[in-house]
């Protein structure tokens, strides 16, 4: 990893208050994120995996500034996090592609208007805006004739390409991709991923890629982090984490992935499955928060919260039993 990270997430915490009783008093907190730290180098693709309820979407929303953190910091390049800062300056460096292109594009706006809006808001682009919209479409491999269309005339894959083009309009450095292909069929997903790889290389983009598809993550990401109940359980180079997962949660996740080939079956051999469902973030277990589902849990896991061991640029794990010495 290079010396200066593009994205620095430092001790990020997000607590949502839970209100109850006749006076709507705060009776507790949903700890969606509880001290998450990682760095992403320029040009790197960092993947965040985890089940629903692990906090991965909350993290994505904080990184793009759609949500404010309760604690900790997010810094992208030279721009510090949104609180008190310049929201617009932040928007020029970080953009987001949402999960469902059907609802993230405005149905009343033409594709041209969709692509011109961010250019108009930021006002940084010098030159004919219309030509820029056509150029953006070309970048995502759609014909210029699409400018006059509306989103309902497009297929799911085409809509997602427009959403990517819109995110690229202001020439950001970091793209946050929140499950960008999970609503698409595999043959379409393959095409969109191919496009994202091409754009990353041509425009030297940095990606924060959120997904629950571990196989896709292994192929697409340089480094990955596995989130469980608002904390990272394991972090490291994609190949290291997928070939030799250490945290029982990562191991369980990989063990449950449906696969299509014999080579993949070999990767799942010897991994312990996990059972049960993720507990509520309003009621986080004591000690290591995974101990309630962990096949390797010991007595100390119930009381002591483990620390990270290892090197996050290679492989680091937050587990008493499988620590890296």
């Amino acid at each position: 990893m290079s010396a200066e990270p593009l994205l620095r997430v430092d001790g990020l915490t997000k607590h949502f208050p839970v209100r109850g009783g006749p006076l709507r008093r705060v009776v507790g907190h949903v700890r969606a994120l509880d001290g998450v730290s990682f760095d992403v180098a320029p040009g790197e693709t960092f993947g965040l995996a985890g089940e629903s309820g692990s906090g991965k979407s909350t993290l994505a929303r904080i990184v793009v500034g759609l949500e404010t953190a309760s604690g900790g910091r997010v810094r992208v390049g030279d721009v510090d996090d949104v609180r008190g800062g310049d929201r617009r300056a932040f928007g020029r460096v970080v953009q987001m592609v949402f999960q469902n292109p059907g609802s993230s594009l405005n149905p009343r706006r033409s594709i041209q208007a969709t692509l011109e809006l961010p250019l108009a808001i930021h006002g940084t682009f010098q030159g004919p805006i219309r030509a820029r919209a056509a150029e953006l479409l070309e970048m995502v491999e759609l014909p210029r004739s699409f400018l006059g269309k509306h989103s309902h005339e497009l297929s799911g894959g085409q809509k997602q390409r427009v959403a990517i083009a819109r995110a690229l309009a202001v020439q950001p450095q970091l793209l946050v991709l929140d499950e960008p292909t999970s609503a698409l069929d595999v043959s379409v997903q393959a095409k969109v991923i191919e496009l994202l790889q091409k754009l990353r290389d041509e425009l030297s983009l940095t990606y924060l890629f959120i997904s629950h598809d571990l196989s896709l993550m292994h192929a697409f990401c340089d480094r990955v982090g596995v989130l469980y109940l608002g904390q990272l359980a394991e972090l490291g180079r994609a190949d290291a984490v997928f070939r030799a997962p250490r945290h029982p949660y990562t191991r369980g996740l990989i063990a449950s992935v449906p696969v299509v080939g014999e080579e993949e079956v070999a990767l799942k051999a010897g991994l312990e499955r996990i059972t049960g469902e993720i507990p509520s973030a309003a009621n986080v277990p004591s000690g290591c928060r995974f101990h309630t589902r962990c096949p390797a849990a010991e007595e100390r896991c119930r009381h002591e919260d483990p620390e990270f061991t290892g090197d996050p640029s290679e492989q680091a794990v937050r587990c008493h039993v499988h620590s890296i010495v």
Partner: protein
Amino acid sequence: MTAPVAAPVLDVRGLRVSFRGFEGVAEVLQGVDLTVGKGERVGLVGESGCGKSVTMRAIMGILRAPPARVDGGEIRYLGRDVLTLGRRERDLLKGRDLSMVFQDPGTSLNPVFRIGEQLDDVMGWADRRGGERTSRRTRRGRILEVLKQVKLPDPALVYDAYPMQLSGGMRQRVLIAMALLNRPTLLIADEPGTALDVTTQDEILRLLDALVQHDGLSMLLISHNLGVVRAMTDRLYVMYAGAVVEEGATADVFADPRHPYTQALLRCVPKLDGSAVYAGIDGTLPDYTRPPGGCRFHPRCGYAHARCSEARPPAFEVGAGPVAHRSACWLEEPR
């Protein structure tokens, strides 16, 4: 691995279904052949819009007609053509012998009724139709037993719970219990567990598999996930644009996919070892109101030649194993 036996539980022959709409007639199913033998686990795979749900709905008799119309073919259940049965007989069949596990645990249960009431409805209805009079108490016993079978902790609590009080995984278990309640012979599972996390999906699939094997049920599993179908079935059918393009023993098809579509689809699936080649498939699914002539895959096929656009290829035998392996592609025509 079980080979289809002489009298299959389900035998679909030349099923054709079309839809009438503003854009004209959409000829969706163009002659689907499919069998499920006794105790066999069969998969039906394909991407959205390939016709797998229409096939399933036609089998269950829950196609909305109009706009849908069955234009031809037979659906034989234990030898009887269900398309010619009277409505009453058909209803009886689908409430008891044929049952279904629905996909979305969030919307397939009624939020204002307790789980127990909803299960009791299903069971009481089938009992009445079968001419039996059962008391709510005896049904409750059976319901609790099935809730236990699907490994729900504390069945009595679940019986009195509302759907919103249960997690997604628990609701999916309730839907499986509902499908097993009337002791069916054929279970149709439509994308079970797709809406759930991988770990929960894995648990649900294992449970379903254990129950099917334990009771010797026949199962037709509909899924877009090739990995799920590989783990859960003995034999499979691959559908594209309203037709079966390849069929065979699951192990054979994964080891040696023959149809260009099956091959392309398998290449698109991301692999756990990170080795995926992102080939993708160019183009999109054809418009059913104006489908391409000949093989419907030919506009997107890398191997297409003149003949592919002229005539529809029949299913050619391509395997040497005990279970028929067929591919509907002109490349396989014996010379």
